[in-house]
């Protein structure tokens, strides 16, 4: 009797995919495509203007990449869990503006530069965590949809950052930039730390139970709850982590420029850039689908496009139009590729 059951189940439906469809799957794999696109862009910009291949420009690219990658990875976690975070940009702005002001007052208290910067990093992380916690409470306690909840946090953060800074740079401290000017090869110590954090977050997302629950909740919240996962606690933690990463990005911009401002550095529209990187990287806004490597490459593509346009004398105002085209192509590719992972 048990053999007949087995025979039935092993029938054609469970057959492995053919070699052809596997090859197709690999070719259409979002990461592979993105990598090829990135390569093509770099070659194109370099061919048009050889300065694009200079060590200086490479250092610039790394720095710009680092200003985006933590926000985008934060957004990746949130989007895979089935939510959206509109507040990462403004959280970075408010964290850096408040911290820069505080550090200015601490400067007179006999603290050396390294102590100041470490303290600033802590401040930024805590302010980011508080902003993330506001979103988390609105979502998990008051059952607001993530879009609305983080719209609240976004507006509050963006507004407060402007009020506190009066629209001008805050806490000018030229010594702060020392961390972004020394390092190894073209990598500053600051970017090495940022990239290390990004890599660790990738490992956590794809190899640990925390990351697994993130996918499970975004894929089917009910199933996750039925499996004994504390969904509310996990979702809350994702927004707090996103806030911390936004705060750290705020500190990154403070160290990079030696001051903080609500209108430059981490701007309020950084959230859209982060979401663009995630979408280009192949994550689905319906949740449950996404890869860290996709987001990482998505950030690289966005950075290269933004910088490269300047090198081929296209006015930077065209940047957003090019990004729009990239998003359109990336999402269309997701829909048409074989073995698409759409859940209805």
């Amino acid at each position, binding site marked *: *009797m*048990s053999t*007949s*059951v*087995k025979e*039935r*189940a*092993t029938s054609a*439906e*469970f*057959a*492995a995919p053919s070699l052809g469809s596997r090859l197709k799957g690999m070719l259409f794999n979002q990461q592979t495509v993105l990598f090829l696109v990135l390569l093509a862009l770099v070659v194109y910009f370099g061919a048009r203007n050889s300065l694009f291949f200079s060590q200086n420009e490479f250092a610039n690219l790394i720095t710009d990449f680092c200003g985006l990658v933590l926000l985008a990875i934060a957004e990746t976690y949130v989007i895979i869990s089935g939510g959206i975070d509109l507040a990462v940009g403004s959280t970075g702005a408010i964290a850096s503006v408040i911290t820069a002001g505080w550090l200015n007052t601490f400067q007179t208290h006999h603290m050396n530069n390294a102590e100041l910067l470490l303290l600033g990093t802590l401040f930024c992380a805590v302010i980011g965590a508080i902003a993330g916690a506001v979103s988390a409470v609105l979502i998990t306690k008051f059952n607001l949809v993530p879009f609305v909840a983080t719209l609240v946090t976004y507006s509050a953060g963006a507004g407060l950052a402007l009020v506190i800074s009066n629209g001008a740079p805050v806490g000018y401290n030229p010594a702060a930039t020392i961390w972004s000017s020394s390092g190894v090869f073209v990598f500053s110590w600051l970017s090495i730390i940022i990239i290390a954090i990004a890599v660790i977050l990738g*490992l*956590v997302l794809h*190899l*640990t*139970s*925390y990351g*697994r629950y993130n*996918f*499970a909740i*975004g*894929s*089917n919240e*009910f*199933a*996750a709850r*039925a*499996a*004994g*996962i504390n969904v509310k606690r996990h979702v809350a933690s994702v927004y707090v982590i996103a806030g911390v990463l936004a705060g750290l990005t705020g500190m990154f911009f403070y160290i990079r420029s030696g001051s903080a401002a609500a209108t430059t550095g981490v701007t309020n529209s950084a959230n859209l850039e982060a979401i663009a990187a995630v979408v280009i990287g192949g994550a689905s806004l319906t949740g*449950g*689908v996404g890869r860290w490597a996709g987001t990482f490459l998505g950030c690289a593509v966005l950075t290269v496009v933004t910088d490269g346009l300047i090198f081929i004398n296209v006015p930077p105002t065209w940047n957003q139009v090019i990004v729009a085209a990239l998003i359109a192509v990336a999402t269309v590719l997701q829909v048409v590729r074989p*073995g698409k*992972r*759409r*859940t209805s």
Partner: protein
Amino acid sequence: MSETQPVFELRNINKSYGSVQALTDVSFKAYAGEVIGLVGDNGAGKSSLIKTISGVHTQDSGQLFVDGVERHWKSPHDSMAAGIETLYQDSSLAPDLTIGSNVFLGREKKRKGLLGKLGFLDQKSMEKEALAELEKVGISVPAGRRTVTELSGGQRQAVAIGRAISWAKHVIILDEPTNHLGARQSAEVLKVIKAAKEQGLCVLFISHTLPHVLEVTDRIIVLRLGKIVRDSPTSEYTVESLLGTITGLSEMSK
């Protein structure tokens, strides 16, 4: 059979929601290797009953025994820990995760050593063990990571039941497992239920599809308006008599 210890027993369970009496003095015993059909019209108390058994809510009065020991559930976690798995209507899998990840969802195997303590998963052995567990109940899936999205409706349900069976020690509760499935796919699910029975599990099968209930169960409990109106071996029912008992028409004609 009556001499052996029931794997699961309810005694005089009552449950009301406000002024609505959902369950009235519900009592029955269930034994290992037994497939019990639980049928009734909408509002007969089926959902209330399985929610009580699985710990989603607690009864107002009455006792619940697992393996002869009285238990009180504070959450679904408690009943799961006691070896009772519940499969809710077609929504127990995360479609974007692999089959292995789904089978181990919420109970992931960690790697050995420091990495395991940090939460790193032993994905390889989970995938392997998941396939072996599914094989045990006659669900054969090819090796390699496949997401549930790539499976048909019947296969998904088979995997979901296979998952429940692999974790259940005593009882699995299946709420409408053949809902929305075609005839051939339903047949696959029914065979998995029979495999669960062969493994010595007690299966509580809730369904509106009476031919399925008659095909796969050993005993059928009929609920009407929160009360058990009949509890007899399946052989004593026909589709007509079962339908009559569910609706109450057979009593009126007496």
